[in-house]
């Protein structure tokens, strides 16, 4: 067993967990933060993307013990005082989702993009979202939503 302490969405969390506990398992099964989705569970689809110390990573491919002491932000941590993050607003406004399964990962990944590239081109958005697979939308509205969010942030 490992004692793991993290700051998740601004709250300090400490748990005794089995050594092989994935971050996605800790979030979903232990802390009931089920906004982070598991699509493939083999590092391909990006539905599980969260931020660890400000960088987007696949939580299904990360041992929680590996990031002891880190700050984690999940989709639940984006809204501020009940007001959606501009990226979430843009996805809603421009229909950047249909079933919504890929959406938490898409949003977390796209938020990370805008940290380093304030005005990404369509191609840069598509390149950045390489690791996020959507089975519904055909990506057009996702790209449009990321552009819209960039113009608002």
């Amino acid at each position, binding site marked *: 067993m490992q004692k793991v302490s993290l700051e998740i969405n601004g709250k300090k969390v400490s748990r005794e967990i089995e050594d092989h506990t994935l971050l996605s398992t800790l979030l979903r099964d232990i802390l009931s933060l089920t906004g982070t989705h598991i699509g493939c569970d083999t*590092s391909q689809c990006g539905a599980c993307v969260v931020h660890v110390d400000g*960088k987007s990573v*696949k939580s299904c491919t990360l041992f929680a013990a*590996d990031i002891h002491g880190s700050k984690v932000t999940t989709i639940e941590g984006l809204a501020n005082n009940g007001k959606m993050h501009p990226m979430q607003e843009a996805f809603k406004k421009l229909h950047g989702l249909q079933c919504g399964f890929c959406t938490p990962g898409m949003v977390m990944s796209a938020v990370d993009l805008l940290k380093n590239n304030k005005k990404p081109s369509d191609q840069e958005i598509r390149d950045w979202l390489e690791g996020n697979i959507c089975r519904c939308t055909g990506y057009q509205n996702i790209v449009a939503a990321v552009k819209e969010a960039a113009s608002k942030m």
Partner: protein
Amino acid sequence: MKGFNFHSVKNVKEAKKLASGKSAFLAGGMTTIPAMKLRLASYSDIIDIKNIKDLSGIKVSSKSLKIGATTKHAEVAASKEVKKAISSLAHLADGIGDPQVRNRGTIGGSIANNDPAADYPAACLALNAIIHTSDRKIVSDKFFKGMFETALKKGELIQAVEFQVPDKSCYVKFPNPASRYAIVGVYVAKYKKEVNVAVTGVESAVFRCKKIESALKSNFSSSAIDGVKISSSGFNSDIHASSDYRAHLIKVLAKKAVAGCK
């Protein structure tokens, strides 16, 4: 996934002491964790090497560029030093997988894993890299042994990869559209006295294409490759590309790489 004991170590000595026939070092985990989930691999001990000081970072001199084993792909891709010394290497790192893979995956893990379609092994062969391990220095020509096989002994830890700065170089890959691994990747590097052409994605492990190298040695231009004959015998053949198509791609990509050399 089968259970294991997780160890986070602070120095190389500790890492080596814990290593056994049933352990694995953990760097980015981008290969190890999926393999463990699929039960292609299981270990009793996982030894996290990312907290070892001095294993991460980039050092440049006029002749060489040394990258610490736990340096992430994203760090190499964004590094001003790498872009200045060997821009093709920053470009290669920027083309690995996706941003989340690049935020975790490391150069040491990529080389130790030696996937037949990985990018960094091609860079090592083309750029005369020396692999610095906990025990010795290994030249790249002696490092990549076969499919997922290297010269590393059990418990031997890669500490850094030292590339020789070329006059000019370029890496071009034809990526698998899903994973971005190379269906074929060709790395061309020109030095004063030699031209190296490394090919990945095509055989069980990365190799140097001597035929194209000798054609380019006398005439360093794309057209010099036109007359070279590449036999597809022994090449990988799968749902992504037949062996003949891969043989064809080697020439196409090598020509693009020569034209793109800077």
